């Protein structure tokens, strides 16, 4: 899969690492020549293109015509919007993602044709609201702009969920233990399955009930 990333900063760095580890082909576009050199050194396996990402010439140069996805994560919402619009209208890139800083722009972007929008402010604020305790919960993955919470929890001996069956736990509505990973094996659990120490649970739930779910599994919410 070929991905173009537009933008700079730490997020580009980690996205690139992550995509490379999955075997994707990554091209990065950035306006600052010095920064491009740095990126090139850090990520030798990627292609770094120097230029204005809203310029169709640059996009074409970066291989937009045969890319599968483009991710716009600059610090300017308008840039991100225009990049995705051009990518889609001129190069028919199948998947475009834009980062927005202003949550109000989610709706605007949607109205202007960019549907996959990630709002950092919304995610951070909903995380804070959900009072996440990071020790026991790892890999919090926001899906669909924070409409669904996907959480990985490691079962420890002091947790109330230990040796309980899923049935007995009485998790709230709109939540579900989708998968238990035990000794490297993935189990799709049923009501009668018990939770053992060391299990990694993959929990899906709506953000509204996340605190409740965590309380039931872990015994407290900080």
């Amino acid at each position, binding site marked *: 899969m070929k991905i173009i990333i537009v933008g700079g900063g730490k997020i580009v760095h980690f996205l690139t690492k992550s995509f490379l580890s999955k075997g994707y082909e990554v091209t990065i576009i950035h306006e600052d020549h010095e920064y491009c050199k740095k990126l090139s050194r850090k990520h030798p396996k990627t292609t770094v293109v120097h230029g204005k990402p*809203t310029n169709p010439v640059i996009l074409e140069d970066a291989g937009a015509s045969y890319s599968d996805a483009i991710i716009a994560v600059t610090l*300017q919402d308008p840039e991100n919007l225009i990049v995705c619009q051009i990518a889609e*209208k001129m190069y028919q890139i199948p998947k475009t993602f834009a980062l927005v800083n202003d949550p109000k722009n989610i709706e605007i972007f949607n109205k202007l044709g960019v549907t996959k929008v990630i709002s950092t402010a919304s995610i951070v604020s909903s995380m804070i609201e959900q009072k996440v305790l990071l020790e026991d919960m790892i890999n919090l993955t926001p899906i669909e702009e924070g409409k669904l919470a996907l959480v990985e929890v490691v079962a420890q001996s002091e947790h109330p969920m230990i040796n309980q069956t899923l049935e007995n736990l009485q998790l709230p509505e709109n939540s579900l233990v989708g998968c238990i990973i035990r000794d490297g094996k993935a189990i799709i659990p049923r009501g009668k399955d018990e939770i053992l120490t060391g299990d990694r649970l993959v929990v899906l739930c709506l953000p509204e009930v996340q605190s409740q779910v965590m309380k039931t599994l872990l015994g407290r919410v900080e």
Partner: protein
Amino acid sequence: MAMNNNIKNNNKEYIIIVGCGRIGSRMANELSQTGKSVVVIDNDPNAFTKLDESFSGFMIEGDGVETDVLEEAKIKRADVLIVSTSNDAANMMIAQIGKNVYNIDQVLARVVDPDELETYNVLEIETVSPTLLASRAMVEKILKEDN
């Protein structure tokens, strides 16, 4: 340029100008002189000093990209939206918001970098490019004198 009162008063009464630079401020001055309601938006409060003493419209300090700021300017009432910031991407976004979200009758954007003109066209935004106009005008003068 003297404003003559021969300009027909069509229904373009409420005009919002985003960006109070050299171009935006001149437009604001002239339009206000003809009796139109003019609202100027700019992030930098010092930009408003470019407006004439005779400017009698409203000035709003804020980022024209933000819907809150546009709403403060009563964008729903606007007949004309002129976008003239120094950032093409912002101009494109605001112009699209005006045209596609608020359905403003006439939306004009200023093109800063002529290389971006194609992008504006793909997005179907009506543009005026000062750089292109200026260079064309000068070239014409040069070529005319050749003859």
